[in-house]
């Protein structure tokens, strides 16, 4: 097992790190150090994956790790354009039902298996096999009926319905391409060490401790927007799990680790002043973080009550106070990482008097002893289950401040903190009026997943993605048309129409982008977040000093 510099020479490395940081003139010694590469130590605050194969299940912690060793057919550049990766080029048939991908030549998986059309076919079938238990990847390729290996270098996708989001779906780590031989080993073996074409290889996974990645010396399939071709500079990555945010930051300060994720607002603000620590702000694509109103039942089945809530709460002030300028207010259902995001800040201007009038109009005219509004004997009480796995302390405080604002006009907001399982259960049982649920996906098609009326039908688990319970024929029609559309302009217009209608009807209250901040030592250079789901890539990374 490779050892870190810090573990070999803890004292010396620490002293050197401190010296370099305080001197502020660390030499950019790219010669021997760069060639030597070194082992990068990454500390993740996300949960440890239960399986390293992102086809199985499919959540963000898996995407973070998988970015180091798996690659996708296509990627996205900083402007949101789809660019070649393992696929060199592609063309779609006139009816949108057939997509042909020309694959890169001469690429091998790290087990020596050649990357070809058969491998692509095997991967899509793996995603669609119920035994894989895929959730995110499974949804992403739901419209793919079959994959045909025309020849070694050409894979043809046959679709059951046109899918304008196909390329965006294939750009995600949850649909990345793995070695067919690796997949054939079965779920348990493949979960431990999936085999890809990426710049690093899974060397060892000591569960509940660390994952060790080593450099893929034969790497030759960098995406079109990478900083260089060929193998990574680093010799490897040690991937650690440090759940406690304060410890994670202390470890970074002490030089025990080189980069941390899930940096909290207070530490980001601190790090601005601290010498030698650099921030990488990479909001996740897909949906913005938003509070959704359960429009499927009283009182939020009344648009006046929804608007009253929005007018009553001062989101800007709460964000400014709790997030130290590390988060920008959003006014769109989509992440600012999405080029097609549409927002309208004027809809969210704070106006408690207007809120009061709207509630009066809606019939919530009585008040009980604590000032909560009443209508026909019912209190204006809102249940707000909050998942402590998904909402950090600052966000929980933000919700509390919003609840305090809503109280002044007569809402009684009951914030209930719960773990992820209980949270899912509360949503499935329809026991909520307010909810904040992240959804990460590449591209605006995420709107279809979270606002199409099809998504109000619960899966057998009881879970449904359309938590606002929007059942609007006009929105459904626009989403369906956007999905089937082959024209980029038409698609953009349709998604804008959907967002306008969602906002105008106060279906949701956008707050900010999904927070995804990284802090790293200044000695670490060349780190960037993939413009797909904003996971960090270390292909171009160098450790100096």
């Amino acid at each position, binding site marked *: 097992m490779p050892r870190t510099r810090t573990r070999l020479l803890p004292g010396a490395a620490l002293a050197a790190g401190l010296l370099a940081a305080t001197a502020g003139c660390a030499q950019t010694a790219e010669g021997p150090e760069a060639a030597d590469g070194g082992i990068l130590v990454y500390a993740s605050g996300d949960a440890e994956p239960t399986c390293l194969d992102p086809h199985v299940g499919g959540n963000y912690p898996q995407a973070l790790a998988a970015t180091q060793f798996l690659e996708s057919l296509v990627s996205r550049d900083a402007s949101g354009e789809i660019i070649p990766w393992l696929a060199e080029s592609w063309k779609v048939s006139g009816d949108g039902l057939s997509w042909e991908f020309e694959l890169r030549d001469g690429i091998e998986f790290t087990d020596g298996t050649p990357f070809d059309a058969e491998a692509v076919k095997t991967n899509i079938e793996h995603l669609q096999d119920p035994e894989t238990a895929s959730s995110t990847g499974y949804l992403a390729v739901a419209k793919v009926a079959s994959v045909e290996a025309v020849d070694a270098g050409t894979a043809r996708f046959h679709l059951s319905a046109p899918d304008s989001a196909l390329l965006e779906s294939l750009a995600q780590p949850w649909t990345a391409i793995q070695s067919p031989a690796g997949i054939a080993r079965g779920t348990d073996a493949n979960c431990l060490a999936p085999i890809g074409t990426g710049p690093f290889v899974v060397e060892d996974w000591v569960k509940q401790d660390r994952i060790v990645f080593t450099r893929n010396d034969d790497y030759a399939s960098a995406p079109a927007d990478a900083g260089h071709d060929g193998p990574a500079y680093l010799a490897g990555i040690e991937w650690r799990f440090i759940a406690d945010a304060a*410890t994670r930051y202390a470890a970074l300060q002490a030089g025990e680790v080189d980069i941390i994720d899930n940096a909290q607002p207070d530490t980001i603000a601190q790090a601005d002043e601290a010498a030698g620590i650099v921030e990488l702000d990479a909001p996740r694509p897909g949906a913005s973080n938003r509070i959704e109103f359960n429009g499927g039942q009283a009182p939020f089945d009344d648009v006046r009550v929804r608007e009253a809530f929005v007018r009553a709460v001062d989101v800007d002030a709460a964000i400014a106070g709790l997030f130290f300028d590390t988060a920008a207010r959003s006014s769109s259902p989509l992440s600012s990482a999405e080029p097609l995001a549409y927002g309208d800040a004027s809809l969210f201007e704070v106006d408690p008097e207007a809120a009061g009038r709207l509630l009066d109009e809606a019939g919530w005219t009585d008040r009980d002893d604590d000032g909560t509004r009443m209508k026909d004997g019912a209190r204006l009480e809102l249940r707000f289950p909050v998942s402590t796995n998904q909402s950090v302390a600052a966000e929980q405080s933000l919700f509390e401040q919003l609840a305090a604002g809503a109280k002044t006009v007569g809402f009684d907001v009951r914030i209930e903190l719960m773990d*992820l399982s209980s949270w899912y259960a509360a949503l499935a049982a329809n026991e909520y009026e307010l909810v904040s649920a992240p959804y990460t996906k590449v591209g605006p098609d995420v709107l279809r997943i979270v606002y199409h009326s099809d998504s109000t039908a619960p899966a057998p688990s009881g879970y449904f993605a359309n938590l606002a319970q929007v059942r609007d024929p006009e929105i459904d029609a626009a989403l369906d048309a956007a999905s089937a559309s082959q024209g980029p302009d038409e698609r953009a217009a349709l998604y804008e129409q959907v967002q306008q209608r969602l906002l105008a009807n106060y279906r949701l209250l956008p707050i900010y982008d999904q927070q995804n901040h990284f802090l790293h030592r200044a000695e670490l250079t060349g780190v960037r977040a993939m413009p797909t789901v904003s996971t960090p890539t270390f292909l171009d990374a160098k450790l100096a000093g």
Partner: protein
Amino acid sequence: MTALAVPTGSGGLRARRGRLGLRVLARAGGAVFVLWAVVTITFFAVRLVPGDPALAILGGPGSQAGPEALALVRAEHGLDRPLGEQYLAALVRLAGGDLGTSYALRMPVGDVIAAQLGGTLLLAVLALAAGWAIALGLALFSTQGGRFAAAVGGAIETVAAALPQFWLAAVLIALFSTGLGWLPPVSTGTAAGLVLPVLTLAIPVAGFLAQVMRTSLLDALASPFALSARARGESGLGVRIRHGIRHAAVAGVDLSAWAFGYLVSGAVVVETVFARPGLGRSLVQAVTGRDVPLVTGIVIVVALAYILITILADAVSLVLDPRLRSEPAG
């Protein structure tokens, strides 16, 4: 334990052996009952909290499990059967010594525990030793005679015993890691990485131990043999060390079984904060992940360890204090 408890008093050897046998039987029966109760309470506590283990197995933040996937996971783990049936199946399995397979880690629970047990035991044993050392020092200092020493010692004990571990951990990291840069804030596999976690656990335990030890020490010093020793001209410290420590130690040993339980529960906080692999951290992850087999397995092992430690503490008390041996057993 029979070897340690051989009676040394006069007469009635056979009767004593009989009583001893009964005592061992009762202990064993009690242990089995405790284990059964622990398994049952854990099983239902984890399952009766709202939330579906199958969903927890598949669904992380932002992902949505497909219907087929859920059905498959339920069948694979027997979650589609009635709760009572699942409970009985779990009992039968556990009685056969099979701890099952962790949902989340996809590994046999026995293997997970074997891998994590060492780290937690090392932490608990070192913390207990450090706690003892600090407590003895404190007790000796606070009983040196002066009113000032007694007041300061008493205050330190009370404060130390009341310190919340997560707060203590944060302060130690801020002081020794971020501030002075002497010790790593996270487990690094080196001895240096152990210091802060051990201190975090040891300081509150030392507070409790020192309170008890000081009282015993004062009692011992007020007793005739201490007076006569002093009359022979022995120094104050000499008297305390030669005659008082044994009494203080007996009191400490009695408390050590309790302290061990405290240390294991403290490991949950310490292992999480210092990112140390161990049973405590595994337990946190298992509970939040609704990983029923792993939660049950860890709780069983901790209960077993606690039972063993209690027996061991009894035995050590017998060795240290002959008076306990001459009293009738039971």
